[in-house]
């Protein structure tokens, strides 16, 4: 099976927000990505499923500009993503299973620090609005080390969205969350969809991913073995995933 570029959704049909062509990356002799292609329009959400070591996180780190690709290109809102070019970083937010926060700082201090790094004008106001949006305003002054895993993840979402990015990358965001925290996260991610942000989510969890996705890819050994508009229910994707990853 060959990997196909994601087709534009005829219901949304906006200009591409994110174009990825022929992305290739190796670590020593291990080929983490082998010619990954896809295109997403504004408001679309791609869920990438794959087993451990499939190259999902590598894909996200390249999209975020944290890693360079050996071959291929990433085009964000019509502009080629170049190494060292800081302009595209304003357009991208990343939520991972690591919070990227400082435990010794309070929630407000963390957000105000990142607001300064992003050069936002009203740092205090922006941080306060972000805290309210994730329901943490009452604990804003408490050090992050005192937060539960769910609260940390909500704050991580606030951090990632602080600069109002057009594209949000999510790396296993449900990892380690209890049911209540996962429900809160689902609601927050649903809000991102309503705000027509472009999402790329990598996960093992088909249920969580399919709930969010307009497009689905299955990645095995660095390749997209299936990629396209979401079609079919969870059971059919479970079967396709099992078939694609058999022997991987």
């Amino acid at each position, binding site marked *: 099976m060959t990997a196909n570029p994601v087709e534009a959704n005829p219901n949304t049909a906006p200009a591409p927000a994110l174009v990825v062509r022929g992305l290739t990356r190796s670590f020593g002799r291990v080929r983490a990505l082998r010619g990954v292609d896809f295109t997403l329009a504004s408001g679309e959400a791609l869920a990438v499923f794959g087993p451990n070591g499939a190259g999902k996180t590598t894909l996200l780190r390249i999209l975020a500009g944290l890693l360079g690709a050996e071959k291929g290109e990433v085009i964000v809102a019509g502009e080629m993503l170049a190494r060292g070019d800081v302009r595209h970083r304003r357009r991208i937010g990343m939520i*991972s299973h690591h919070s990227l926060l400082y435990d010794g700082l309070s929630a407000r201090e963390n957000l105000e620090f990142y607001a300064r790094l992003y050069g936002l004008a009203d740092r205090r106001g922006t941080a306060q609005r972000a805290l309210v949006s994730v329901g943490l305003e009452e604990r804003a002054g408490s050090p992050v080390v005192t937060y539960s895993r769910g609260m940390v993840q909500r704050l991580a979402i606030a951090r990632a969205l602080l600069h109002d990015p057009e594209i949000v990358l999510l790396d296993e965001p449900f990892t380690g969350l209890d049911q209540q925290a996962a429900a809160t996260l689902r609601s927050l991610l649903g809000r991102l969809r309503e705000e027509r942000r472009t999402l790329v989510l990598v996960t093992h969890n088909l249920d969580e991913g399919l709930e969010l996705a307009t497009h689905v890819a299955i990645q095995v050994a660095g390749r997209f073995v299936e990629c396209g508009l979401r079609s079919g229910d969870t059971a059919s994707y479970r079967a396709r995933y099992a078939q694609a990853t058999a022997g991987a």
Partner: protein
Amino acid sequence: MPSTFAAAWAIAAKDLLLEFRSRTAFLSSLVFTALVLAIFNFARDPTAVSTTDIAPGILWVTFTFAGLLGLNRAFALERENHALDGLLLSPASRTALYLGKVVANLVFVAAIEAVALPLFALFFNMPLLPVLVPLAGVIALATVGFVVVGTLMSAIAVNTRFAELMLPVLMLPFLMPPITGAVQVTSRLFGGRPFSEVSAWLKLLVAYDIVFIVLCVLIFEHILDE
């Protein structure tokens, strides 16, 4: 987009606030400093070697290793929750990140030295006041070189398996020129020698600082790539 200096200041202020709250590295370095000075004080034989001859070496060995304890934490605190990724995702330049870390480390090492110097005077009965201004100048010059190189090495060492052990191994060879220069100048200051005897060493310290500030800023851009 934040300016390089605004981003650097934000990073330095954040590092210093975290250290001020935990005080872990600062207190460890202070205890280490007091212990080293006490051990050297009781281990030496004042009748065999004069204090003026041995004290400069002890002062700089103490500064160097106490400073190393602080430099270890510069990037180690970014490992927590993968916070370094958060910095790299932001529009702040790599240069801003490096300069921010350098400023925070300079404040940290200077604070250690400010406490260590009176302890040194106390343990070794050295009259520092007559040479305090030139000594402070030498300490500042050597500390800048030490911190500039140490911050870069800390970034290199942080992703290795034994970062705390790797940092001195990587760093100490590069510190030979500034530490040697600082010991030589300090020794002559304590001995009341004329300025002409130290000018060459001072030039070395200044040249080292300029060369390594430029080099480290240029190299740092590539250190954090992958």
